[in-house]
């Protein structure tokens, strides 16, 4: 079947299998920031935004994004032109192997789009379903709070 949807600001009209996952589709389209971890919606590594909401792409059927707006980490900027949120992760040293980082950043993006002054507790609650096996969570929480501070200072675009 064919579906159209918006991926990182660009219209897509693509062939999909009826039972294909959004994760599979996005990786086919070259969005390698979208990681396959548990494949059961538990680890958060595959998190992307659909119409601004964080969802697990591994348990989302690709057909469900028909006519909708999908954002992956690639849509937040490039290595040469970093969005302040990933930049805050670098600044705070919140990245080690990097496997959980795209999902962590997009989950944080949704939080900060609705609340640009979250408490540490609210940040921890927001990322409670995103697992990191390297750094622990202290630096990740610090990075998100730093990004929130930058957002309040008007440094986001």
């Amino acid at each position, binding site marked *: 079947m064919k579906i159209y949807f918006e991926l990182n600001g660009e219209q897509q009209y693509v062939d999909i299998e009826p039972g294909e996952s959004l994760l599979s589709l996005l990786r086919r389209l070259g969005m390698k920031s979208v990681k396959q971890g548990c494949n059961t919606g538990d680890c958060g590594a595959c998190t992307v935004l659909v119409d601004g909401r964080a969802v697990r792409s591994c*348990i989302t*059927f690709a057909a469900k994004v028909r006519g909708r707006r999908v954002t992956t980490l690639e849509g937040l900027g490039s290595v040469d032109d970093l969005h302040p949120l990933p930049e805050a992760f670098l600044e705070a040293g919140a990245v080690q192997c990097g496997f959980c980082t795209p999902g962590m950043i997009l989950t944080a993006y949704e939080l900060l789009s609705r609340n640009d002054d979250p408490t540490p507790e609210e940040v921890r609650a927001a990322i*409670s379903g995103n697992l990191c096996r390297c750094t622990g969570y202290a630096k990740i929480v610090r990075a998100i709070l730093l990004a929130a501070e930058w957002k309040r200072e008007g440094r986001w675009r």
Partner: protein
Amino acid sequence: MRLSGIKRYHFARDVDEALSLLAAYCGRAALLAGGVDLARSARGDLEGLIDITGMGLSYVRGEGGGLRIGATTTLTGILESKAAKEYLGGFLCEVLRRVAAPPLRNMATLGGAVASAHPWADIPTVLVTLGAEVRWSDEKGEHRASAEELWQRQFRKMFRNAVLTEIRLPAWEGAFAFEKLSRSACDIALLNCACGLGVEDGKIAWARVAVGATPRRGRRLTWLEDFLVGNQPGEGLWREVRDRVEAQVEVSSDRRASAAWRKAVVGPLVARTLKRAAEKMGDA
């Protein structure tokens, strides 16, 4: 994603179309809203998926102090609705904030939680405590039943040929509280409890108590509700509750927790939840 063999994905426009499609597939199709449970299921018999999110069943409406919630409303949609925030002083929102992580709440629907009704889930425990009514349609027409009654039937088999449409929560004059024990904030409960109390002239006028993840699905403790009525809320009563629950509630082991552990904590959990409900009414 564990499903394979899907040949067609349909977008149903209304209940009749969804039912027609279900009938056409003779049991080899499934309805899909959030898809959280379906995508993780290992149903190898499925050939068709029927998306029901475009049928106008995503809404939360306040009605006479109660709530009407469309089956395809996501948990986030409920959390953000004004009517749900106002219902029972925000009790429902207090519960849903403790169910799963935000990205899963963006996907999971209340109808899905009712149709799956996992024994370990928090929502069934809360819905039986609140006296929720579930509405659905099948080829014979529209039906309704209390959540308690529904879950005593073979509901999963039934929903293979029916469309769950709405969940109604009644108005209550009193306060409710919810507690769960789990390994982390968003984890599956090892034990959960929901309670509601109405107090008149310093005494309990009505009580609703349910315990779930025992590891069985949440069910009411009607014998405890009867015992509570007429008593004065307070530490003495909560101690009595703790002892009675420990002695009478049946618990067993599963891969998450042992029967011995559940037996040790179920009494304090119920007593603590009741105390919180009483505190909300200013009668602890």
